[in-house]
């Protein structure tokens, strides 16, 4: 097999111990730090979710008071989105695996990479500590004006939240610059566009979206901070729509920022565990890029009851339905890859199948909401909550766990316990559906989202109780995962390539050496490791 030798600069021994982590610029260590940080925030936001569900378990409960309730769902949403899903997928898996999958020794700007991480962690801690010490915002993750203005959110908690999100935006914008340059200029020889792994395609598209969306949110956040503290007049009287436009101009693309990397993960795992090439590789790539582009044309579908000009609304209804097409294309590609494959039903593949089932349900409720007349009924109801949990938990979070089971052995050098993995999967799938499926009905029965409690006799009791029970099953499944991680220490050694993977990360040791590749590999197809296996006889 051809390969190119590039001398590795000898530097002082890589530092070990705590300092080795704090001072590191190694993309893998930074990736692991992102993963650990995000998982910690996942647990924190999960605890908040349990409190929310306890409060709603039955009518007129007083588990938390209404103000605390508002603070809880605000923080739950913000942390899950900004401090768990995005940094886990982009910062964690993106950092660790993009360089490995393209045959590079690191990202293009390793120091900038470390800076992005520390700014993200700092912002997260500011937000969380503010919350723990009572400086809380309660204007939801959407921070709509006028709730978030000085008159309705007079405390400093709102400012802390705003500044936290500004810092997070800066961190992820710089990270996006890094990814784009890395993917553009540091691919192994021979890795032409169609040979770039699907996860890398997804990450590059995601980075492009971050670059074109996040600064608009940053601008809006700064404007709001100024309104609150320096008496500017951006969002006063009659300008509530301005906030909504700027917020959703970012936050609709942000939902794709959260799903595209997960789709990339699925597109990597399904072929490996079906023992088949990805069906319609080019269609998957093109639909990824199309989703990235179309993602910028749909944001007004969050504003169908905000009084936007009906002609404009109809345009956005159309674009929202159009974007379901490339999403559907991908689903059929995954199904066709599975079809007739010799399925290796290990936990990573189960997680992918879980993704497919739940994500499709979320996609269907999405298309329903795309229709203006339907959305005017379900907007701001639990139907929307059901929708976005089906795509975000059922999609992104199943994708995250698929990746953890798939790449965990590469990162740690140890195999997970399959039995516990399967238990985790089934509990999570069942718990998830018990929690969120009833919310469709609650929404259709008129239960608004973001209410602290409700009176009996509206027919909402059963659904809410079931959802709360489901939430605890879900939490228990995460506990099983944590046990599985703790048991990793005694797991079987993974070897370089436990799954017979297709991509370059499986060509190096587990965990990989600090410089990744002693010799930069040359790539001749979209499945370089498959090629190598075909060429070398089995021993």
């Amino acid at each position: 097999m051809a390969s190119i030798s590039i001398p590795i600069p000898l530097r002082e021994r890589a530092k070990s111990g705590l300092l080795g982590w704090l001072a590191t610029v190694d993309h893998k260590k930074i990736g692991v730090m992102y993963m650990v940080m995000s998982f910690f925030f996942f647990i924190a936001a999960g605890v908040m979710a349990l409190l929310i569900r306890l409060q709603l378990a039955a009518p007129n409960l007083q588990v938390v008071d209404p103000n605390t309730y508002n603070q809880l769902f605000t923080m739950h949403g913000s942390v899950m989105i900004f401090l768990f899903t995005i940094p886990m997928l982009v910062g964690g898996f993106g950092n660790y695996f993009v360089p490995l999958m393209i045959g590079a020794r690191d990202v293009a700007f390793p120091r900038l990479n470390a800076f992005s991480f520390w700014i993200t962690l700092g912002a997260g801690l500011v937000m969380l500590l503010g919350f723990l010490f009572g400086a809380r915002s309660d204007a939801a993750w959407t921070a709509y004006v006028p709730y978030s203005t000085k008159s309705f959110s007079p405390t400093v908690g709102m400012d802390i939240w705003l500044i936290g999100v500004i810092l997070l935006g800066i961190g992820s914008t710089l990270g996006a610059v890094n990814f784009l340059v890395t993917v553009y200029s540091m691919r192994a020889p021979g890795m032409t566009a169609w040979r770039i792994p699907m996860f890398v395609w997804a990450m590059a598209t995601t980075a492009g979206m971050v670059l074109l969306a996040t600064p608009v949110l940053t601008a809006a956040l700064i404007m709001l901070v100024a309104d609150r503290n320096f008496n500017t007049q951006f969002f006063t009287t009659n300008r509530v729509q301005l906030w909504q436009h700027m917020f959703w101009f970012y936050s609709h693309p942000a939902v794709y920022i959260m799903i595209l990397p997960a789709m990339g993960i699925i597109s990597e795992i399904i072929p490996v565990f079906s023992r088949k090439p990805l069906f319609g590789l080019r269609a998957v790539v093109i639909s990824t890029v199309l989703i990235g582009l179309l993602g910028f044309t749909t944001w007004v579908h969050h504003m169908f009851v905000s009084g936007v000009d009906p002609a404009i609304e109809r345009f956005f209804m159309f674009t929202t339905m159009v974007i379901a097409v490339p999403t559907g294309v991908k689903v059929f590609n995954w199904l066709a890859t599975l079809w007739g494959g010799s399925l290796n039903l290990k936990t990573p593949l189960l997680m992918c199948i879980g993704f497919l089932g739940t994500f499709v349900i979320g996609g269907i409720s999405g298309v329903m909401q795309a229709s203006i007349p339907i959305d005017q009924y379900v907007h701001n109801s639990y139907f929307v909550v059901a929708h976005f949990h089906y795509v975000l938990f059922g999609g992104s979070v199943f994708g995250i766990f698929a990746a953890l089971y798939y790449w965990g052995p590469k990162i740690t050098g140890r195999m997970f316990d399959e039995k516990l993995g399967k238990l985790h999967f089934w509990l999570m799938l069942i718990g998830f559906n018990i929690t969120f499926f009833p919310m469709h009905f609650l929404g259709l029965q008129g239960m608004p989202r973001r209410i602290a409690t409700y009176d009996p006799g509206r027919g909402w009791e059963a659904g809410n109780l079931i959802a709360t029970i489901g939430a605890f099953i879900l939490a228990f499944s995460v506990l099983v995962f944590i046990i599985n991680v703790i048991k990793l220490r005694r797991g079987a050694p993974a070897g370089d390539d436990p799954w017979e993977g297709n991509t370059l990360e499986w060509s190096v040791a587990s965990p990989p050496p600090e410089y990744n590749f002693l010799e930069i590999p040359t790539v001749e197809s979209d499945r370089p490791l498959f090629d190598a296996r075909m060429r070398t006889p089995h021993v």
Partner: protein
Amino acid sequence: MAQVSWRNREARATSRAVSAARPQRKDVGLLGVGFFIVSETTFFLGLFLAWFFTRNTSDVWPPAGVAPPPIAPAIFNTVVALLSTVAVFFAERALTRDDRRGLVRGIALAGALGVLFMAVQAAEFTDLATLAQGSAYGSTFTFLLLFHVARVFVGVVLMGVVLVRALLGHFSRKRRLLVQATAMYWYFITGVWLVVFAVLYLIG
């Protein structure tokens, strides 16, 4: 399990003695600046979005009783910005001929013009603070100026660094990444100014 030739098992022994932090290609720096400029452009797009949204949803523009700031300093600054861009252009060209004195002169001139630009804006800022607090028009107007001049400040600092390092002889035809990056950023800043000027002062 199959063996792969580049698997480099023997590498593990030496793994701790080597460093990974090194890009494989040299041209990544300018590309990074390019992508960064894209994100900066998006930021200003956000502010312009706010401007046009507010403008379209107002009956009177600028609002009744709010006087737009005088245009004369802005015209003056447009000339200053264009001149400084020309200076940067010639400084960069001088370096491609290994003409270090040309580089120093051009950057010094451009930096001085940048400082002049900031001074002219600073003189206006007390009026702008009142303007910003009076109306959405004023707030957006001021923010566009403020965030642009913040970039001018960054550009001037970069030029200061370039100037010092040029005097120390750090640059040559082959080593000029920082000079190129600074020039690129400065062109971007001037471009933003032209749009800001056109939108705020000419279109109104």
